[in-house]
């Protein structure tokens, strides 16, 4: 299958053909763009039909010969190389530890019930944390690179346990020939100097939650006492960024129906001095006042276009600015196995609740039907594991013709369940936005390399 799309940059229209199954990207002229649309039964607008009909027959012949040559080479309209797939191993490689089911903020869009996940306030004990590390090592087979993410609620409310777990895991690494990577997501309220220095030393990545402009952030990300948190959060996050140097971190924000002009929030975060930014659409049931509605998709897509132009300009001027969803490495990206299976929830990636229960991922915690076991037991619910391991891009009907299917890996299973009632259901808004971001990532990668020398 071939996906044809265009991208407007500096008042010029660029045309692309993305070959979905082979992962080939072609920059084409207008004649080739229209001929390809005709050849691969992609609908043309009325104006495109008019232009197509005016093409010189010799040009049409030339283009079709070129398209045919690329088909012969397997780089256009390529057939699907993998028809069925199942994960080869059942080894666990990453745990998300819900170190604290409590939070010092009450964000308007929180999916975690103010941090408690509808399970009541709880802090993970050291015993549970250590058992989680043991569980990970014992269930990781020959995988060397293991990951432990500290999540909440707000993990810094149980920071001593975080430190104890890190020390415990590191003490076992050499003996078991494992390399641990630690990550932590924080709202930055308790990110004081000593905490920042510890995280900078021990964490391979730290995610700092800020939503952008003050009015946007303070409208939603409020303290328990309902005060705004912007000043403290930005001050603490900037200190962390200052000492972080070139090591990995992300400022991660959320946009909602109340700030559909979110490109301004990304730009604000960059203006503040943050150069690694991810701002994502909120995922909520349509009845929620902050939820993204279908009729906002065009507006949001336009915001991504504004953002991509800003992104290209910033990078062209030498700034090391990254926006998570525009990052795309077409040469060194993940293998097809990863692309088919997505995030690995329920198979290689599991979440651990404060009492040690195992769930497919952090968004499933508290859903008792999805409890897969306990870190104190070696066994896992194999029926559930089989359910999750059998879900791939290949068996989701709505993914079949999607140009972004090997980029998103089939989408977030929790979002599907929460919004459609099925693990394999389609969260249509998420799909639309993912496709747009993917097109921009492809076009940006091309433009950045072709213009920047």
């Amino acid at each position, binding site marked *: 299958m071939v996906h044809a799309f265009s991208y407007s940059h500096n008042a010029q229209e660029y045309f692309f053909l993305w070959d979905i199954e082979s992962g*080939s990207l072609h920059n084409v002229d207008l004649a080739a763009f229209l001929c390809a649309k005709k050849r691969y039964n992609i609908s043309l607008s009325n104006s495109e039909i008019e232009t197509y009909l005016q093409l010189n027959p010799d040009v049409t012949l030339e283009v079709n010969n070129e398209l045919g040559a690329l088909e012969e080479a397997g780089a256009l309209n390529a057939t699907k190389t993998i028809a069925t797939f199942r994960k080869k191993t059942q080894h666990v*490689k*990453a745990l998300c530890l819900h170190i604290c089911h409590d939070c010092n903020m009450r964000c308007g869009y929180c999916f975690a019930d103010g941090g408690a996940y509808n399970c009541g306030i709880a802090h993970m004990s050291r015993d549970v944390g250590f058992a989680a590390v043991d569980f990970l090592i014992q269930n990781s087979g020959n995988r060397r690179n293991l990951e432990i993410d500290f999540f909440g609620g707000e993990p810094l409310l149980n920071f001593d346990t975080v430190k104890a777990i890190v020390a415990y895991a590191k003490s076992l690494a050499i003996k078991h020939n494992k390399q641990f990577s630690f990550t932590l997501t924080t709202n930055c309220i308790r990110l004081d100097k000593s905490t920042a220095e510890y995280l900078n030393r021990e964490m391979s*990545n730290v995610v700092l939650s800020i939503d952008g402009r003050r009015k946007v952030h303070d409208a939603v990300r409020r303290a328990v006492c309902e005060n705004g948190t912007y000043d403290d959060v930005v001050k603490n996050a900037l200190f962390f960024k200052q000492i972080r140097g070139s090591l990995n971190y992300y400022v991660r924000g959320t946009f909602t129906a109340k700030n559909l002009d979110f490109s301004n929030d990304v730009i604000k975060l960059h203006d503040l001095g943050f150069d690694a930014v991810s701002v994502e659409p909120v995922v909520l049931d349509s009845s929620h006042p902050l939820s993204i509605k279908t009729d906002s998709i065009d507006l949001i897509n336009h915001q991504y276009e504004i953002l991509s132009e800003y992104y290209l300009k910033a990078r062209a001027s030498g700034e090391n600015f990254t926006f998570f969803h525009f990052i795309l*490495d077409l*040469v060194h*990206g993940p*293998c097809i196995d990863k692309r088919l299976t997505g995030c690995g929830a329920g198979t290689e990636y599991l979440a651990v609740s404060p009492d040690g229960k195992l769930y497919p991922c952090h968004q499933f915690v508290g859903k008792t039907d999805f409890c897969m076991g306990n870190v104190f037991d070696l066994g896992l619910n194999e029926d559930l594991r089989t359910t999750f391991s059998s879900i791939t891009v290949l068996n989701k009907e709505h993914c079949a013709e999607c140009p972004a299917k090997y980029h998103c890996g089939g989408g977030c299973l929790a979002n599907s369940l929460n919004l459609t009632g099925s693990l394999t259901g389609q969260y249509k808004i998420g799909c639309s936005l993912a496709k747009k971001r993917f097109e921009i990532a492809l076009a940006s990668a091309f433009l*950045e390399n072709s213009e*920047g020398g």
Partner: protein
Amino acid sequence: MKHIKTIVFKSLVKDGNIGCGECQASCQSACKTSCTVGNQICKRDEKINVKTNKQSLTI
């Protein structure tokens, strides 16, 4: 070719030890409510690839 410039050739067709499972789980990066795997880096490539500001692309 006169009308078509191939930017990336068959990036999904990779040889070698695929599916080793050593790369980062996507939700351990920045996305916690969406799913993006295509912007992850292959762990095997990461070892030999010098990190640069620009994204890798063959033209």
